[in-house]
């Protein structure tokens, strides 16, 4: 699991894991609304910078009480999207038919969450969250179309 904080938001921590060949995608998909983290289709993420710029944006919205979704985690998914259409954002960046690899993302207040085992519900091979690994899973055409 990769952990980082956003300098301006010392109150929070960001946890990220990248999983390959996830086997229980249907199960995750049915639980997505109740999980304490966001599940993102890895084929839409080209690099760390892309994901973290969305986290930054979500934290700004949170700070000014402008969240447009229920949680900070889901707000990150919306922030990945160039439009403000929530349904569209989830359809594009969330897990869907054919998703194989996922990025799990949790933005939590320091000390609020039991972080070990946070993503245990995922049955897949965890690989290092790096730009290199991300780009091997990327659907570039899709990204070009969307952004």
């Amino acid at each position, binding site marked *: 699991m990769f952990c980082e904080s956003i*300098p301006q938001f*010392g109150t929070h921590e960001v946890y990220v894991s990248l999983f390959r060949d996830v086997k229980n995608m249907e199960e995750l998909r049915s639980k997505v609304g109740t999980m304490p983290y966001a599940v993102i289709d890895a084929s839409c993420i080209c690099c760390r*910078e892309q994901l973290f710029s969305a986290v*930054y944006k979500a934290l*700004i919205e949170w700070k*000014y009480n402008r969240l447009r979704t229920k949680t900070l985690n889901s707000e990150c998914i919306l922030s990945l999207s160039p439009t403000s259409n929530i349904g569209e954002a989830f359809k594009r960046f969330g897990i869907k038919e054919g998703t194989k690899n996922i990025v799990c993302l949790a933005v939590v207040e320091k000390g609020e969450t039991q972080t070990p085992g946070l993503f245990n519900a995922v049955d897949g091979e965890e690989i290092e969250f790096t730009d290199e690994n991300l780009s091997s899973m990327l659907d570039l055409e899709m990204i070009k179309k969307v952004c």
Partner: protein
Amino acid sequence: MSQEVIEQVATYLTPNVPITPISQGAEAVVFTTNVHPYNASACKTADGIPVKYIIKYRPPKKYRHPSIDKTLTKHRTLSESRILAKLSQVPGLHVPRLIACDVYNGCIWIEFIGEDLPQNHGFSNLKNFLWMHKSDPYNTAIQEVLFKVGEQIGLLHWNDYCHGDLTTSNLVLHQKDSDWIPYLIDFGLGSASTLVEDKGVDLYVLERAIISTHSRFADKYNEWILMGFKSVYEKEGKKGQQKLKDIIRRFEEVRLRGRKRSMLG
């Protein structure tokens, strides 16, 4: 710079983001920092040199009603960010990359462009660069830079954007393999515009800036800029030629209006 404004920003950014003030304008204050807003790995280059970022902050104006002030700040911050983001996608056009944006607080982070010129000639904007070469004002390095400046403005206009405040400080030179590449900065007054008037005014404002700071060499300098500007349109066939003619005609009209105004005092 007002201590109060600096403290506002420092509080907002928290001690995790140390800042150095570098400029205060009517509209915004500008700081540098070595901290990337969300990408910790981007604080140093591969060789371990700290990377600089620009933070541009629009402080609240006390003389405006608070809610009007908030709306205006949000509007201007958003407008500048949108333009920067759009322009970054225009092939061949050089503008600093937009990194982050907080419209509620009037804060944007942008890539830092430029460096210090040798021998204390100051920051590498066009103004200082021209001063640096005043003993050899017509050398080919200058001609090349000014031609490229013209090209940048040509590309901007051809894509139907206007800068709104084209001064020689808002053209920053970035050194790459011993070449100087001009970047356009400060789109605080920028806009998407198809109007020849806006484009004519852009050209006129820059011409005036060159004349007022480098008057002895201004004719040649403006000629080189215009050559670069025209070259962009001339590559675009008949349509480009026609648009170029319209802009140049308007530019001359704007210049004439400017003269009349100054004659009247």
